[in-house]
């Protein structure tokens, strides 16, 4: 089988020198156990920016400083001894205990080394919910960060298009997964319905996405003017 030029497939485990058979889930201890070597490597490389390395159920969690998170992810992605080439998830955690900080969590996976690493940033209550965006490293972070912003209100600095993803863009009630958000929302049902029905589902499409975009130049002048003003075409 030939591969096209410029394309090198990532073979899972190809860089790993670990020959020990994988442990069955039953033999993985709750706490402790063999840590991901990336945890120690991070400690050596970044020193005090790595605040804690935990191993729980065989998975390594590294708590890092917010200010150096982008640098750390960049290094994990680029370093030939780490090669974390997949971003599995970006999410947030808020605890019911009001004194505990809000956590922002990144799940990284290294296919060549068969490693999994969880990065956490702790944001104390009262501090601005701003973390760096990793979109310029992993393009897949785009919607993950938008969802996290939509549900928790965490701002990702450097994201190219940080809009709401699940709720509609004019949603005014707040961030639904925060603990201070009532489960039925803040407004009355009729007000929620009125706002939802007032939303125009087509505003999210640009001219280029509409089917008439090709014919735009052929349209009469007044119609082009109306479309430029933001008038929508229905259908």
């Amino acid at each position, binding site marked *: 089988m030939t591969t096209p030029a410029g394309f090198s497939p990532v073979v899972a485990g190809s860089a790993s020198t670990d020959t020990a058979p994988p442990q069955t889930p039953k033999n993985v201890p709750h706490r402790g156990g063999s840590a991901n070597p990336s945890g120690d490597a991070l400690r050596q490389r970044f020193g005090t920016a790595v605040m804690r390395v935990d191993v729980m159920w065989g998975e390594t969690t590294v708590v890092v400083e917010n200010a150096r998170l982008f640098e750390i992810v960049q290094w994990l992605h680029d370093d030939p001894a780490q090669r974390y080439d997949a971003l599995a998830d970006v999410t947030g955690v808020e605890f019911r205990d009001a004194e505990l900080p809000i956590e922002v969590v990144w799940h990284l996976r290294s296919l060549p080394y068969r490693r999994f690493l969880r990065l956490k940033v702790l944001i104390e209550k009262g501090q601005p919910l701003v973390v760096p965006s990793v979109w310029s490293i992993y393009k897949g972070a785009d919607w993950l960060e938008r969802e996290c912003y939509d549900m928790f209100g965490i701002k990702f600095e450097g994201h190219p298009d940080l809009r709401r993803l699940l709720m509609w863009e004019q949603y005014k009630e707040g961030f639904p997964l925060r603990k201070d958000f009532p*489960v039925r929302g803040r407004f009355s*049902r009729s007000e929620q319905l009125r706002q939802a029905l007032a939303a125009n589902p087509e505003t999210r499409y640009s001219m280029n996405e509409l089917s008439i975009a090709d014919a735009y130049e052929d349209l009469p002048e007044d119609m082009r003017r109306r479309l430029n003003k933001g*008038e929508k075409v229905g259908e």
Partner: protein
Amino acid sequence: MGLSPRPEPHVVTHGGEPWMATRLDFLVNWSRANSLWPMPFGTACCAIEFMASAANKYDLARFGMERMSFSARQADVLICAGRVPFKLAPVLRRIWQQMPQPKWCISMGACASSGNGIFDNYAVVQGIDTIIPVDVYVPGCPPRPEGLIYGIMLLQKKIMNERSSDETLRREMEPDPRSQLYIPPEAIDEMSENFGNSVHQKRSTL
């Protein structure tokens, strides 16, 4: 209401040929009730049961629903199968407005009918009857195909009892000109081409 019972068609023989005399309402309703084209609006697990109803074992084609009408313009009955989040509410209402009269709506399952209790949260519409008029509610979570078929047969009964003289039946829910959903009819015609069999048929005057 003083509705008279539905008359049986009278078959008479005239000149050796059998003739049938009936009310026009009966004939129209009979043909409408037995050729309902559904617009499937499936959003959740109810849609799986709906697909099962349409497949060979339960075979909705027996009820004149041979063809799923994925274009709202050719549909007769909107079957809303599944929960409707608020983000989908304007879409559902617009699809309903695009369906030509006569049209009916079946709300399939507990979520579409009432929000289902467990979805009593910030994101889900508590019953599609807050958005569009509903003719038949099918309970269940999700309803089995037998349940949906029973709802369809109820709708057919309802259609058979309709009177063309009853103007309230076809009262259209006009879009509010102040809402962003409203598109003036002349704008619709300007942007869309003629369609259908006639060059005079326009989108705005369906």
